[in-house]
């Protein structure tokens, strides 16, 4: 089925759809974890019912061995290879995923789920708390990368997928990949953590905190209860996005794209308008982001990233997270990524080596910063293609 066909009509006012739970939900598939068998979160809270919104592409083969789980990043969603229902833009990883692409939906059954705590259909803080009949807001329990993966595992149980051929994801998606291998080693044949780390660094926690404080400083945040008040902390969320967006790029990329060029003017305004193109660009990034993202979801998901530390979870020895692993790994980093620098991937590779894991590790030369993993990077793509083909050969997958 054409992915576009499956999408229902777009909401008349997508802005409202993003924050108003009474608006029609997003198109796509839903799975519910029942209240009778709730998710036991790392915080100890039992959460249920939980909705998992997801998209699938391609066909699951007879022995259910060709499933690929794509894990999305902080502000990504399940629309990995579909036109986005709010922005109308192509899927966020169509560079890699689709018919005839590297993650070929003619070969693989691709699953991508909105993370727990997200705002694109999976249960999150903007949904109704069954106990109160009101939006969760800050009453929503703090969730972790581990909790996100647990919800995905329940979805795969429901889909009848015992072992994934591959789990792949970048940035926070890469954290989920590592969590998958660590928590469910028998369920992952191959793992591709891209532009990621086994733990969030102090610098990255710091950036996330700036974003959260920007949201919480917006009077419209209303201590998280903005839905009840009929407002939305758009200014705070936009600033959070602007700050974060800088970390996804590189100095070189920013300079090449904008330099010190002025925006629609011949000279400086001697004021605080967006004189520079880079200012205008960031303001645009911020203002469009609030149309598709929920501020409280941003708080919860950034928190989940901050809490992620696979090394600490294994008594300070990262190799312990991978003891006895049979999974084939392909670790990828990018030279200009200063948010998840190559040194983090190298530390991960050292731990995988210590666990005698089957691992490939490449650093791709790119000046596009962290966002390189989403972009057209031919060498990155040839590496992923080769790795997947090699893994498919080892798995004995046959394609017609």
């Amino acid at each position, binding site marked *: 089925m054409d992915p576009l066909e499956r999408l229902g009509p777009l909401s008349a006012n997508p802005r409202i759809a993003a924050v108003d739970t009474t608006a029609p939900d997003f198109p796509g598939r839903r799975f519910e974890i029942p209240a009778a068998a709730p998710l036991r979160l790392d915080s100890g809270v039992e959460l249920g019912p939980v909705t998992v919104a997801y998209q699938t592409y391609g066909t699951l083969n007879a022995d259910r061995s060709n499933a690929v789980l794509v894990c999305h990043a902080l502000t990504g969603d399940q629309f990995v290879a579909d036109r986005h229902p709010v922005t109308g833009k192509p899927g966020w990883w169509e560079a890699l995923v689709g018919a005839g692409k590297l993650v070929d939906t003619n070969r693989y059954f691709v699953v991508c789920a909105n993370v727990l705590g997200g705002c694109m259909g999976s249960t999150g803080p903007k949904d109704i708390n069954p106990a109160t009949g009101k939006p969760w807001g800050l009453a929503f329990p703090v969730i972790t990368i581990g909790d996100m993966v647990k919800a995905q595992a329940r979805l795969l149980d429901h889909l009848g997928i015992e072992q994934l051929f591959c789990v792949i994801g970048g940035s926070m998606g890469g954290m989920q990949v590592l969590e998958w291998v660590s928590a469910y080693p028998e369920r992952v044949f191959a793992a591709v953590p891209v532009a990621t780390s086994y733990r969030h660094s102090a610098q990255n926690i710091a950036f996330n905190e700036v974003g959260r404080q920007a949201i919480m400083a917006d009077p419209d945040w209303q201590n998280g209860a903005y839905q009840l008040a009929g407002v939305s902390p758009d200014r705070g969320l936009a600033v959070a996005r602007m700050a974060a967006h800088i970390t996804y790029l590189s100095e070189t990329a920013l300079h090449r794209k904008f330099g010190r060029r002025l925006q629609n003017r011949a000279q400086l305004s001697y004021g605080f308008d967006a004189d520079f193109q880079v200012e205008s660009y960031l303001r645009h990034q911020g203002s469009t982001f609030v149309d598709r993202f929920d501020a409280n979801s941003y708080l919860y998901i950034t928190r989940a990233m901050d809490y992620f530390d696979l090394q600490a979870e294994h008594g300070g020895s990262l190799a312990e997270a991978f003891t006895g692993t049979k999974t084939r790994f392909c670790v990828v980093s990018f030279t200009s990524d200063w948010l998840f620098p190559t040194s983090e991937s190298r530390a991960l590779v050292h731990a995988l*080596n*210590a666990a005698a894991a089957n691992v*490939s590790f490449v650093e791709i030369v790119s000046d596009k910063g962290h966002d390189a993993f989403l972009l057209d990077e031919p060498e990155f793509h040839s590496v992923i293609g080769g790795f997947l083909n090699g893994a498919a050969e080892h798995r004995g997958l046959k394609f017609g």
Partner: protein
Amino acid sequence: MTDPGSLPAAAQMRPRATIRVDLKAIAEMIEPGTRVLDIGCGDGALLDYLAHEKRVDARGIEISQAGVNACVAQGLSVVQGNADTDLKDYPTGGFDYAILSQTLQATWDPKAVVGELVRIARRAIVSFPNFGVWHVRLRLLVSGRMPVTDTLSAAWYETPNIHLCTIDDFVGLCDTLGVTIEKAMVLDSQGRPRSLNAPGRLANLLGEQGLFVLRRGR
């Protein structure tokens, strides 16, 4: 779960390109179905051969990014890394064979590297250009300048080969480290093994390359 280390039978049928004679000599020493780490694996020719001809669980380390990317794009398991710094991460006895082909002379600390090789693998296979071969000696003697040959093709100021040694030097290093030489052979200028058994004076004079199989302890 299917073991990712073993290839299905169909995959072995794929015809492979032939490999260099010296790599072939190394490949012939490897038991099928074993776990191998090739350090300085270059474009992955030996790894690819071992994976497909010997059903070996073949891994590689390569210092050049271009080499690593080419290997991984072929479906080989290779990490970007450095023999001097990265071998310490590997668990003791994690491999059946560790191969160091034409790389020892380019490491910073060959002594430590050889020590690590015999720690991480049951057998280490090491090959290197022999600086004691007669025509190298002759060139140095006659011209008074650093020899440039087919196997040592760069001038002294730009060569990556910073720790050249002779076959006798290497035997001495193994003795110092308490490493057992299980097998020693020399390769001629075409990389073909020459049947000189003991690494004696003749080997050091006639061998273009030394090829050794080592194991830890005496």
